[in-house]
């Protein structure tokens, strides 16, 4: 379609869709009166799993299968983006290597220092958020992105050379796969140590303690590792593409 018929068609379609959804929404229970079993779920998770943050109780226990699927979505997407971006890259490795060093050299010292200084706090914050997910807002996903941002900062602050020595992409790829693998293994372990896959088989401890809620914090850490790896993989691949290639 050319622009005009497309615009007209879109207007008609979306007006119809909006009207339908508004009609449906008018039959929902009024805002502020949920129809879901909110309090029953909170009580169940606190009493039976000793999880203080029941959102993570739902995420990593009650509906842990959703999260397994979600982790694999992230895993596949990160891997896939990396493969897609690397496609057709082999031919100019030489050029890449040369520019690699220039990329490092271009970064001003002040920025490099500022970036390096921020890394420590970011990593501490990320780890804290990951391991306290069952107690307070946060968890593997939120902390993982913070950790990935820390890694990216190292990269962007011109420490490319330092990181290149440990092959950052290989490292984050390993983290990406390890996290996903760990989640799946804990899920399968439920069959061995309890009666069902994803069953919470560790002691539940005292509500509010760091070591409580059984496998919930374990899975949260697995997700944290996975997310750190996945997000860092995507970002470093894109960064590689922009900083180290092209620009001639």
């Amino acid at each position: 379609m050319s622009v005009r018929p497309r615009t007209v068609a879109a207007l008609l379609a979306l007006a119809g869709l909006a009207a339908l959804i508004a009609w449906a929404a008018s039959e929902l229970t009024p805002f502020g009166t949920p129809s879901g079993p909110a309090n029953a779920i909170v009580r169940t998770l606190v009493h039976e799993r000793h999880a203080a943050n029941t959102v993570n109780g739902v995420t990593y226990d009650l509906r842990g299968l959703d999260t397994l699927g979600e982790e694999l979505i992230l895993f596949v997407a990160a891997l896939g983006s990396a493969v897609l971006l690397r496609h057709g890259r082999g031919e100019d490795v030489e050029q890449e290597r040369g520019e690699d060093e220039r990329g490092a050299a271009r970064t001003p010292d002040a920025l490099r220092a500022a970036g390096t200084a921020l890394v420590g706090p970011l990593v501490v914050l990320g780890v804290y958020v990951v391991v306290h997910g069952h107690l307070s807002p946060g968890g593997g996903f939120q902390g993982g992105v913070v950790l990935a941002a820390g890694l990216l900062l190292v990269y962007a602050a011109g420490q490319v050379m330092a990181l290149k020595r440990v092959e950052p992409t290989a490292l984050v790829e390993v983290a990406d796969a390890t996290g996903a693998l760990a989640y799946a293994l804990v899920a399968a372990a439920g069959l061995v140590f309890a009666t069902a896959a994803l069953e919470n088989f560790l002691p539940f401890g005292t509500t509010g303690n760091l070591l409580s809620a059984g496998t919930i914090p374990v899975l949260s850490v697995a997700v944290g590792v996975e997310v750190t790896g996945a997000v860092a993989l995507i970002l470093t691949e894109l960064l590689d593409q922009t900083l180290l290639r092209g620009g001639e």
Partner: protein
Amino acid sequence: MTVLALSVLVPMIAGTVLSLTASVERRPAAAATAFAATLASLVLLAVALAHVGDGRTVVWWGNWPPHGRVVGIDFAVDGLGGGLALFVTALALPALLMAGYAIRASAQLFYGVCLVFVAAMVGYCLTGDLFDLFVFFELMSVAAYVLVGYEVRERAPLEGALTFAITNSVGSILFLFGIGLLYGKVGALNMAQLGHGLQAVGPSGLVCVAFALVSVGLLVKAAVVPFHFWTADAYGVAPTPVLILLAGVFSELGLYGFARVFWTVFEPALAGHHDAVRAIFVGLGIATGLLGAVLALAQHHLLRMLAFVVVSQIGLFLVGIGLLSADGLAGSAIFVVGDGFAKAALFVCVGVVTHRYDAAGERALHGRARALWPLGLAFGLAALTVADLPPFGAFLGRSLIEDAALSAPGWAWVPAVMALVSALAAGALLRAGLRVFRGVGEPASRDARFTSDEAGGDEREDVAVGVPAALAGALVLAALVWGLVPGLAQSVTAAAARFTDTAGYAAAVLGGGSGVAAPVVPHVAGPGATAYLYATATLLGAGVVAWLGVAGRSVPRTAARAVDAVRALHSGHPGDYVAWTAGGAAVLGALFALTLR
């Protein structure tokens, strides 16, 4: 039966291990791991299916059985869901075998992603939770986006992967929005419990709109008109092993999801409106079948032609499901498997030819593949399967759908249209096969919409033929054997009767099923005289269409112009496709609002 969870977990674990060790690429070991994991999943599913028998198996993840109301996520396996999962793993084996030939770079990662793709499709078939269905749906979609763009051939248009991803993402979001509406009304995500809750709501506006949104999400995946636009673009670019899975099961899973959601979630609210639902979905199926067949006929690009053949077959499957009867559904289930093997064979043949001669157009390939006659033979047989050749599995499935249509008042004309659809689609395939593998007639005329693939490159000797040809032969054989399994029609009909038994499903999942009577299983006779009549007509029709095509007979100008106008709508513009999806959702919602209340 809690070990059922392993049918999903084993491929996932193997897939992550393969990518974890990707830096030390060991190709044979990776292939063997992928095979072993898929095979393990297949065996587990076969055992589970035997265990299911005449009932259903319900497994609660995390050991959260319902206490009054459902809190956890269940796998609720019945004959059709478990059987489809089994078929997914069975078709994954030839796909993995082909990967050994078709994938050059980062093969180990490819196997890893493939395993996750398979795990997602299996989980999707087994789950009893609507949101979990969405998660597996999304996982298989994202894996498919990656796999479709994985190893891009030099001539292939990469934007196909992009339009595929954008259109399907929009479908997913509409699906999720529908789930949000349902949760807001009922406060549940388990399909059985949602159905139970919606029974009290009845056919309200919210139910109509949610049904439309959820259906659109699933029908985008299934490639039903007008949500089919992405197929040809995506099929034009995907590697062969991915095409086997995409064409063989991926689209069909969209239809399975639709049937599952209808019979568990919406049926209780729409119980009195089967006639309207039937009219809408049989109509959609027929529109999809006809459009796909006509567009296949108009195509000279082999992969895009196959894509439209897939669309046309999807339309016929939807007819079987849309008749809303156990025998129609059983017919579609048998048809899906028989046709899936045949389509896999077609894609293997076309994959080898397009790679070896570095072209995908009928004109460029004219007579070039004469030497590859075993592939030509497999291609021809598979094309005849599409043309309803007895006693292939597809024929058995179709005969059930035809009987279901003939016994439904007002739908007796449907089998004739089905025959027309298949005659056109199979005719296109036979025409292409005769030209490419035999060099019959004049080369195809130039296609004004398609100029980038005129010449074709040199023959690439390194593209293997032997094993793929044997594989294509084996797939055709499987399609044949499937039709000869004794008692298949009756046992699948019994499974379909349980699938459509909403109350029985709810009782099995929610507990307290002692008062629910077992569903009535209609008795189905084997294919009768009418089935052979339709098959003969279809085969003759396909022959005539192929002959007219090879002889270069031109179609009447008005018809050509009309077809060209329809082809022009497949513009490759993601915005257009999104507009069609949104428009289709609005129209479907309006239809439901007008007819279901």
